[in-house]
């Protein structure tokens, strides 16, 4: 089952710079992802316990994130350490934001909503960021489309078949010969899905023109999902259902 207790990718590591934060959702639950200035990524509930403001609107200073509304500052453990309106207050431990296990693997930031999580997903070796796609469809629709757009290798000669390999419930691999993309699947809500795409392989080989090459595949996949009836986007030789 694709349950909240699994590990889920929320973003490409590359898209969250040190000292910045972003909001996202997993099964509709609002989360903030933030990276402290030391480079460590954190996933929390996106809600300041004080007045309910989204912490993703806030700002990162060192290893703290501060709420935009009244400046309450939280440490890496989610505990409020400082309240600007009461600078001398020893803040009670009950002022705490729920914190979720966070790992970076295969160029993506992963979390689980479980309190007793399984092992984090295995790292798949060197990757290079491609991009994230945000789609108005259920995750199963997005997964089903992965094999519908043929992948052309960048560095290798010739054309191989495009294969889709399910690594885990939330990680897929689309390959053509020796080259391939890792695709993390995030169920934003029941009918909104994020695909986080990373190129498998070395920076030397794929940086720049390799990324541009695979970006074309990503944009064709997005077009295909958003225009399911446009048969012109079907790959050559594929069977096209006529409705």
């Amino acid at each position, binding site marked *: 089952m694709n349950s909240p207790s699994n590990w889920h990718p929320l*973003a*490409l590591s590359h*898209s*969250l*710079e040190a000292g*910045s934060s*972003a*909001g*996202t*959702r997993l099964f509709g639950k609002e989360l903030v992802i933030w990276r402290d200035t030391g480079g460590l990524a954190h996933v929390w509930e996106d809600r300041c316990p004080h007045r309910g403001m989204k912490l*993703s*609107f806030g*700002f990162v200073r060192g290893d703290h994130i501060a709420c*935009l509304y009244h*400046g309450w500052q939280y440490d890496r453990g989610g505990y409020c350490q400082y309240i600007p309106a009461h600078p001398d207050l020893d803040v009670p431990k009950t002022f705490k934001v729920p914190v979720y296990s966070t790992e970076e693997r295969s160029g993506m930031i992963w979390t689980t909503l479980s309190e007793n999580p399984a092992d984090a997903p295995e790292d798949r070796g060197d990757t290079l960021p491609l*991009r*994230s796609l*945000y789609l108005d469809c259920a995750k199963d629709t997005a997964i089903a489309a992965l094999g519908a757009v043929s992948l052309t290798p960048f560095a290798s000669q010739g054309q191989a078949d495009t294969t889709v390999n399910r690594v885990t419930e939330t990680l897929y691999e689309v390959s053509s010969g020796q080259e391939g993309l890792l695709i993390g699947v995030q169920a934003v809500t029941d009918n909104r899905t*994020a695909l986080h795409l990373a190129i498998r392989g070395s920076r030397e080989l794929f*940086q*720049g023109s390799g*990324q*541009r090459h695979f*970006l074309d595949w990503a*944009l064709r996949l997005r077009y295909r999902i958003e225009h399911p009836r446009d048969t012109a986007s079907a790959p050559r030789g594929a069977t096209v259902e006529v409705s």
Partner: protein
Amino acid sequence: MAPLVLYNYELDESCYKVRLALSMLVLDWQAVAVDVFPGKEHLTLPYLAMNPSGRLPILKDGDFVLHGTEAILAHLARSHDPTGRWLPAEGKTFAAVMQWLNFSARDLDVTIAARQHSLFNTPGDEATLRAASSRAIRIMDDHMTARGFAREEWFAAPHATIADIALFPAFALSRDFGIDHDEYPALRRWARRFRALPGFKSMPGIPDYH
């Protein structure tokens, strides 16, 4: 030289673009506060005489009166920036800046309508305005994603230009009309760089981090 005069409304993102340019180009300028909401002063005779379209911003440079946000940005960059960096003269770079100024004027106009609907209850269908705004902002995110692969950090040149100034407010203010920054990672990174430019100023709706 007489200072430049900007007929300004603090909550208007088009006026904000000009304020950003004046500040980033380190120019000497004065503001005339216009009571747009609720006074509709911009629709009175003296303002219609300067801009018959009844819109701000309006810039006065000596006795030269100019309206149209992109035209004002281009004028400041061409006539008041000795470095020439904000509107590069080189053919393709100049054309790329023009492409994004045109995008700002045409495709991002819907984001202005969406924000005015949300803040001032001007006419419009919220869902339609929001969907069109998301489409426009996604085009910007797609562009900056591809630029990133070429290790380029700005929309049209190897450095910031008036194109970046023209495009920044629609993204920075998008939460005013219900569009979060969550799904635009390339624009988040670009906006962080933009905020770090010398002369950057915020406006209501764009937080200063303290």
